[in-house]
């Protein structure tokens, strides 16, 4: 409860969690910690990580995924070697999360079109935020007939940014894996290079689409 008596909303990383068994902690020791997060995107890039398929099993001998877009826990405990960011920056929570990942990851990677240049969400940049909100909430054909015209606004709802920006315009990003979404092979290639301590080498063959 907050001082004024209202229920405090907990962020996902503040929720109580059961510590992993000692055996698991021990097995993870010495592995390279990585984390992934989704900002404003469609999660398609996260699905590409799943497209690693069975290759993820040997990879997990070398790395441990401390945070993933699947659990959507937006804060990292401790430090990560590699952070994958999908999605662009479209609201103030995206900004804070991206800053947090930059502060806690040695290497930060933009994954996919939204992260690299704003992608589909950045189409709203061309019409302006007011027109976008009007279309989404007031003039929307799916608005319930007779419902009051409302645009969500509350201190606990992150404000949308004036325009959608790519991640590297907000913080420094180290690598870029292009694609919408990138091929699972591209993610695998970068991840296995980093896990093995090799320079990242993304063959053009898996980042060219024409």
């Amino acid at each position, binding site marked *: 409860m907050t001082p004024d008596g209202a229920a405090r909303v907990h962020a996902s990383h503040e929720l109580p969690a059961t510590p992993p068994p000692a055996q698991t902690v021990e097995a993870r020791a010495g592995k390279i910690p990585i984390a992934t997060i989704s900002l404003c995107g469609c999660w398609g890039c996260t699905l590409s990580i799943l497209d690693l398929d069975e290759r993820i099993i040997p990879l997990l001998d070398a790395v441990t995924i401390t945070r993933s877009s699947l659990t959507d826990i937006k804060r990292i405990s401790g430090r990560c070697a590699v952070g994958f960011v999908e999605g662009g920056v479209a609201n*103030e929570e995206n*900004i804070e999360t991206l*800053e947090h990942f*930059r*502060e806690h990851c040695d290497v930060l990677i933009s994954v996919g079109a939204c992260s690299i240049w704003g992608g589909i969400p950045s189409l709203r940049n061309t019409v*302006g*935020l*007011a027109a*976008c*909100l*009007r279309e989404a909430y*007031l003039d929307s054909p799916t608005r319930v007939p007779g419902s*009051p*015209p*409302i*645009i969500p*606004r509350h201190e606990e709802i992150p*404000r*949308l*940014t*004036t*325009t959608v*920006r790519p991640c590297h*315009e*907000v*913080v*420094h990003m180290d690598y870029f894996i292009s694609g919408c979404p990138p091929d699972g092979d591209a993610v695998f290639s970068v991840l296995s290079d980093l896990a093995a301590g090799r320079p990242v080498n993304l063959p053009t063959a898996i980042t060219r689409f024409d």
Partner: protein
Amino acid sequence: MGLDADAVLTRHGRDRTRLLDMLWDIQRAWGHLPEDVVAGIAEGLGTTANDIRETASFYHFFHTTPGGRYRIYLADTVVARMRGYDEVRARLEQETGATFGGPPDPTGSFSLLDTPCVGLSDQEPAMLVDSVVFTRLRPGKVADIIAQLRAGATPEEVANPAGLPHDDVAYVDHLVETNVRTKGPVFFRYPTDYRSLIRDCLVLTPEQINERISESGLRGRGGAGFSTGLKWQLCRSARGERKHVICNADEGEPGTFKDRVLLTRSPKQVFAGMVIAAYAIGASNGIVYLRAEYSYLIDYLQRQLDEMRADGLLGPAMMGRKGFDFDIRLQVGGGSYVCGEESALIESCEGHRGTPRLKPPFPAQRGFLGEPTCIDNVESFATIARILEEGPEWFRAMGTADSAGTRLLSVAGDCSRPGIYEVEWGTTLSAVLELVGAQDPMAVQVAGPSGECVSVAADGARQIAFEDLACNGAFTVYGAQRDLLGIVREHLKFFVDESCGICVPCRVGNTELLRGVDRVMAGHAAHADLDEMVRWSQIIRGASRCGLGATSPKPFLSTLQRFPDIYRSRFRTPHGVMLASYDLDEALAGYDAAMRELEEDVS
């Protein structure tokens, strides 16, 4: 009014390559390019209206929609901004009731448009009212011009109240000053008898002419500095039924105006150089590509050509020499900087957009209409006439080891005697500054935006020469009071506007550089942003198709090297990991602003 497509087509022989001439005819008659006339031209040429529009839309001076009765183009240049441009611009808006870049005033009398340098840096601010030029503008002068136009006078009557004939040099001199400050050795020395010069040349064999040009060590005066002799030999040995000589008078580099002055004071020297080139390479067709901004020279130059024809110095079987047929026509451009690039210029001569070609093949191999073409700058041709007059040794004795002869400088900016100076290559920057009466100089833009911004303190001893400080003729002096970063911005904006857009590094990269400078100016940049801009510069210079992209980052790069403090002093210290360039306040202001905008529509 009233000129129809058929009349235009007939006038230009239904020749697709004369499209620019046709567009000019239509625009002069109608004030713009009406859809039905364009459709008629397309039909007559066996093409589509979109094909015609594709060409027309490339050029600043062609308009597909009606404007005011008069279109006023105010030259927005760095020098104009030193000379009261802002006041003139404001007064123009006030007097006409129109806004720059906006619709015409309510009475439909005036449209106001921005245009880059019109080649009058020694008499700025300057403007064109349609094709008529007005210089040394002041707010009062502008008010007077607008009042006269409103009262019913034509721009022509306002500029030329005495009614001087357009083909007379007095008319040109009445409109613009030529400000020639030196006489000789190569230019503006004394009248030459071109008849005997050409006659003497025709006694030699073409090979002997080529040898003399090679021996003289002449390098192209357009800026790139390629050996003229070598170019001519390549063109002569290139296989082709017909060959062409083109004179590049598309003097678009901001700050340069020497070609305008040469064409005013010594047109026949230039044309004689073209005749000699034609003889040396075996060409039959000559074109002078004149930038549209110099349209007030058209009638005067036509008369010079007519006089040469009457003298037998142009035309079939010249000087009784069977087989040597050569004539020159004027091709007026449509307003485009990149058309100064030789292959873009050739595209424009063929009636297309001025998109540079991939090289090789070079114009000497495959140029105009795919045929071998010798294309040289106005000053090069004028120089050639003098080399043949005095001999290659005379020429070679002037200048430096790698830069023979002299160079015309178009001097403007903070100096007491702006104008045209001829200096030997090898003259130092300091010596030129002294010659022109520079006033408290801090920097000099040598060779315009595509050249270098050098420091008077650090570079004073450097020589104007291809091997040191290469110069295409523009020499703009900036006094200590000038805002260099603002000047850099102007120049980058110029390249963004003038990029033809065909290749991504130039189209996108220059925009990125401009945004970078804006970030620095707004105090939103850190060192990392400059590093990023340097990387962009390398990409633009290395990957662009033509000289525009190869040089466009230079305003940024040369000032970064010579005047790093103009950038550093505006750096912002980043907070935490967020980049200095990310404007958090701006990013978060939009939502509240949008909600305010929508306030009345929500419950």
